[in-house]
């Protein structure tokens, strides 16, 4: 059986951040325990049991919001259902405010070998406006603890284009982050999503967002600083030692998913199917307990759609995407002429300027 990427979604957070539209809930107590029990049950009953894990990724929410025994127990169940391949990358996201040295040590012992810290910013004003529970000191301490616990592969998430953020503030953030010597950086431009507090504030004109020009400059600045620090860009938002799990997404491969609201995509015979689990923890628990389907949504990804997705995702990679999935010759010529796209034998890839225009290039290359 071919190895496959495995994703585990833990939907709990200490509090809900203003910009966040992920499937996360500020819940605690009994419902957390019942959800974890249901997740163990889901993994135990998995139809894909026995398929080896190519990578494992715990995301959220905040996986480290769970207790040591809960998170380690979940990993144990995953590894039992999906024996890890040699040198399997096993990541957990972590919130700097919800971790300490003993927890990291226990996680490392359970098998996790990569930590992704949601730092977001080192500026206390930014962090407060984002609604994060940690402050700048927590981040440095969390990095130290993770290293001490034996994590040799560590990522920091940072956000740019934040309300009130200046170029100076962003540069300081980057420098502080790089000084912590992470193996990897993920840099995300803030997007205002519907159903968030930020969205409502934005509608009322109460978010002081930097304009397009400044956001582009912030992004370019980050790309050059990462390069100078030896973190090579390999994807639009990602720099440094490649995340094997996320590469599976960008290459259009299969991924299995467990937990409330988790999204998986698998091939069964000729059919590629994507599914989403029940999102609300209570609904999810009910579904697991009743023994019925856990899906709240599913779609068959037919060949043209899959090709479009491969194009959309593959273009994000610096390595480029197979030229076979670009069907619009005129659009391709136009994008090359505008200096946003490069043709290398068999591949198409974005130029540095083109990385600002990934969606436009995708649309231009896609069939009518």
């Amino acid at each position: 059986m071919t190895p496959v990427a495995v994703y585990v979604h833990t939907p709990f957070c200490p509090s809900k951040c203003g910009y966040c539209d992920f499937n996360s809930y500020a819940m605690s107590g009994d419902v957390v325990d019942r959800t974890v029990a249901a997740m163990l049950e889901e993994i135990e009953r998995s139809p894909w049991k026995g398929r080896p894990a190519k990578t494992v990724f715990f995301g959220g929410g905040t996986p480290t919001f769970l207790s040591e025994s809960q998170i380690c127990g979940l990993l144990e169940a995953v590894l039992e259902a999906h024996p890890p391949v040699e040198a399997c990358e096993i990541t957990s996201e972590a919130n700097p405010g919800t971790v300490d040295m003993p927890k990291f040590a226990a996680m490392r012992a359970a098998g996790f070998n990569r930590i992704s810290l949601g730092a977001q910013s080192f500026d206390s004003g930014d962090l407060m406006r984002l609604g994060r529970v940690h402050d700048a000191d927590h981040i440095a301490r969390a990095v130290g603890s993770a290293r001490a616990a034996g994590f040799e592969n560590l990522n920091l998430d940072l956000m740019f284009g934040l309300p009130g953020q200046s170029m100076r503030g962003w540069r300081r953030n980057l420098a502080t982050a790089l000084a912590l010597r992470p193996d990897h950086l993920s840099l995300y431009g803030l997007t205002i999503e519907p159903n968030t507090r930020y969205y409502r504030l934005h509608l009322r004109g109460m978010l002081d967002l930097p304009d397009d020009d400044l956001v582009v400059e912030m992004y370019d600045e980050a790309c050059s600083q990462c390069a100078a620090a030896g973190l090579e860009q390999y994807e639009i938002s990602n720099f440094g030692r490649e995340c094997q799990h996320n590469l599976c997404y960008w290459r259009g491969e299969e991924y299995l998913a467990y937990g409330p609201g988790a999204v998986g995509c698998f091939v069964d015979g000729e059919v590629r199917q994507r599914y989403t689990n029940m999102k609300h923890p209570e609904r999810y628990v009910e579904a697991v307990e009743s023994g019925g389907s856990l899906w709240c949504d599913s779609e068959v990804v037919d060949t043209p759609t899959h090709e479009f997705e491969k194009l959309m995702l593959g273009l994000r990679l610096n390595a480029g995407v197979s030229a076979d999935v670009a069907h619009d010759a005129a659009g391709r010529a136009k994008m090359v002429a505008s200096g946003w796209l490069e043709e290398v034998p068999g591949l198409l890839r974005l130029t540095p300027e083109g990385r600002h225009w990934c969606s436009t290039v995708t649309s231009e290359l896609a069939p009518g």
Partner: protein
Amino acid sequence: MDQSHIRNFCIIAHIDHGKSTLADRILEATGAVRGTAQEQSLDTMELERERGITIKMTAVRMNYTAKNGQTYQFNLIDTPGHVDFTYEVSRALYACEGALLLVDATQGVEAQTIANASMAMNQNLTIIPVVNKMDLPHADLTMAQEEIENALALDATDAIPCSAKTGLGLEDILEAVVERVPPPSGDPAAPLRALIFDSHFDSYQGAVAYCRVRDGSVKPGDKIKMMSTGKVFQVDEVGVFRPSLERGLALECGEVGFVTGAIKNIGDASVGDTITLAENSAVDPLPGYRKAKPMVYCGLYPTDADDYQDLRDAIEKLQINDASLDFEPETSAALGFGFRCGFLGLLHMDIARERLEREFDLDLILTAPSVDYLIQRSNGTKDHISNPSEMPQPHELASIEEPVVDATIMVPNEYVGTVMTLCQDRRGTYVRTEYPSPKRAILYYTLPLGEILLDFFDKLKSSTKGYASFDYELAGYEASDLVKVDILLNGDIVDALSFIVNRQFAYYRGKAIVEQLRKVVPRQQFEVRIQAAIGSKVISADTIKPFRKNVIAKCYGGDVSRKRKLLEKQKKGKKRMKNIGSIEVPQEAFLSVLKVAE
């Protein structure tokens, strides 16, 4: 049925005076429809229901047993009430001998009451005044009667009070139809003469001609001849509307119904034509209808140039059901191949667009509406132009005349001043004032048609708290100081956005359109300059700053579907845009001229 027991009548009224509701009650009372499950039975088009107005008239056959114990055949023809559809009202009148003149007891006589009633009087129809909405607390029968007498010079002493809502007075109305409306007067023994007053196209039966048999009769199997073209068809079916089509054995003298005969070419069942028999033909056709004259013109283009042929087919099909729609091919440098279409008014234009998009699944772009101008060139030649791009250069132009209308505005006394100011702002010429009742005035104005096209009616309504009513009739041409204003995007004239306007409003309108365009044209990947100009003189300008990037966001396993759908949606949106040079312009841009508020 014996001709003496047939009654053909219609209901004419100002919009919202309760015509469709009364029609429903009559249908129920005669058992033509059961119950009130579906209110306003005669409004069959989805659009009509949505907008709460009647666009296409419908003719319904009913049987009514009168107090005298005899059974009569009623043919009720429903008519539209909006000012745009005066022409459809005029066609309905040709099929009738009588009309119920419906007046709202709380509103009294309104502008369209006057317009429609005069049309009916010119047709020598018997008019039965009916005062509706008597169930409302503010109903005022005396006021309504006074206004009918003063404004219409009709005897209103035996006006029938009624409430279409509660059914009050319904029997009196039905009895009055029997007693007062004369039976049809045709000759059953004479050669067939049937007047086509409407039609629709059915994909299985071909053209369905709605007609009124004046003389003779027609039945399936008959060979019929269209008198204007001489073309012969064999009748498949005849029948009546109950209100849906119901097949019958024959249409007799005086009756109203439909005829089909595998008439594939829609032009062969044209409204106003007379149907006769191929053998034993009538000698003279019935007098045809006055052809509706379009008031408003605009360009109609497919968003996707590949849909041109589909658009042509769709307009042709729509035209058979909408005889007042006029069109001819035209080309635009900006928009490619399309059609110049003439409409009765803006509502008519909007409805036609919506029907084309909805019923034929087309994506359309409409250009700025224009009226028909009469120009004289320096070399003495004269021309009608309805497309601003045909306007000669200023030095080639000797004079230009614009269409004007005789407007009738009915308004409570306290708003007379407001309305006069509005009319003056629109370059109106005062004619006279009449007072049909102590509290209300009728203002007569001559107004340039181009000035009332866009938002005059809205303005009139809003400045009189909704009390004013308005009707107009074309009254010829008058000289005027008009100029063509061009709109330029990055230096190129967008011909589809040019418009003709009185010189004194040119600056204001140009500026407003530039502002409107700045709002609706999305940011592009380069700077876009928008200008309004008269000849080479720029009168207003603005720029749209370029984009610098797309959203730079993460994309992992849970984001794929959503991100893909977003891109697909954007791509679809792009398809609805028109490329002018390298600038993507959304459809709304071409209607921005309409949205220019005061």
